[in-house]
């Protein structure tokens, strides 16, 4: 498991160095290109503010009222028998439905449990390792006018479930 920590540590710095050297080699005006691309980041961050405010307030109410703990206590015994931490379930449910809502929930969990806690790491991995199935399905099929989706939704959701299981197993093995 040591090797994975090393890869995690080295991956980003090496990639940055590689991109910059490769860009220079290909005679890309690196700095100007960087600035152009970066502008998009500001737009993106600002545009998700309303999504996050809406979702994080709803979760904050749900949590502060005691309803979340109540719900988790009900489902905990069943899930713990198969090794699934109950606290992660709300995120797993919302992840395929809305990317921004899931982002809000991930942030909320990282804030509540701490980024270096087991749940914090699991939420981080889960957020990064699957995509919003309903969004992709609606946008891609909607844009080209596909009305009969066939097995697409089933396949997408089952793949999400597999990703969810993989995230739990991997995080348990590495950090557990």
């Amino acid at each position, binding site marked *: 498991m040591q090797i994975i920590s090393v890869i995690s540590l080295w991956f980003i710095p090496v990639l940055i160095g590689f991109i910059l050297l490769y860009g220079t080699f290909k005679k890309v005006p690196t700095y100007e290109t960087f600035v152009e691309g970066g502008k998009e980041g500001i737009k993106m961050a600002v545009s998700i503010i309303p999504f996050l405010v809406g979702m994080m307030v709803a979760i*904050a109410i749900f949590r502060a009222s005691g309803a979340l703990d109540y719900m988790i206590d009900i489902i905990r015994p069943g899930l713990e028998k198969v090794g699934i931490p109950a606290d992660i379930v709300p995120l797993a449910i919302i992840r395929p439905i809305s990317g921004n809502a899931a982002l809000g929930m991930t942030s909320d969990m990282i804030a509540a449990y701490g980024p270096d806690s087991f749940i914090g790491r699991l939420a981080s991995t889960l957020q990064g390792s699957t995509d919003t199935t309903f969004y992709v399905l609606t946008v891609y099929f909607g844009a080209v006018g596909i009305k009969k989706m066939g097995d697409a939704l089933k396949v997408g959701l089952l793949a999400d479930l597999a990703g969810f299981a993989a995230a739990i197993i*991997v995080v348990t093995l590495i950090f557990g």
Partner: protein
Amino acid sequence: MVNYIWVGMTVIGLVFAAINGTMAEVNEAVFKGASEAVTLCIGLISILVFWLGMMRIAETAGLLDKLASLFRPLITRLFPEVPAGHPAMGYILSNMMANLFGLGNAATPLGIKAMEELKKINGGKDSASRSMITFLAINTSSITLIPTTVIAIRITYDSAAPTEIVGPTLIATGISTIAAILIDRYFYYRRSRKG
């Protein structure tokens, strides 16, 4: 669906607070939740700007195209219905590369173009073809090299090692993509046996 979940969480929370006597906590939660969300987004700006800037360099330098040609043999196998050299293949590959580098905004238009081409191959029908379902399955299990946003959130909340989840995420996303392909194949063979 999100609408129901959103309203559901809020209303259930409010009712719960009324019964449990936790109204004071709920009042505080409304304002704390909102301000935390904004703080978070401001924190996100730093890493999004940096990373999208980096990726733009990679894109302009042709790194994405390079990678795409590297993966071509593999992709041809995944989409047996797509003829060699068909424009659909190019769009599928560039969409995957954009996803790989976390360029969501670039990935979506490419993905739509890929779907358009796949629809042409399928004779313009309004039902999803085998390749479309495969493409979708791979897309929803999203292969991402760097989970930029998650790292930014972890930095905001003072993680001792914000990037330590890169390795686990890569493994998990790899497994989920392989699973997506297998599940897709399984459903395809089940369909074709039914005729």
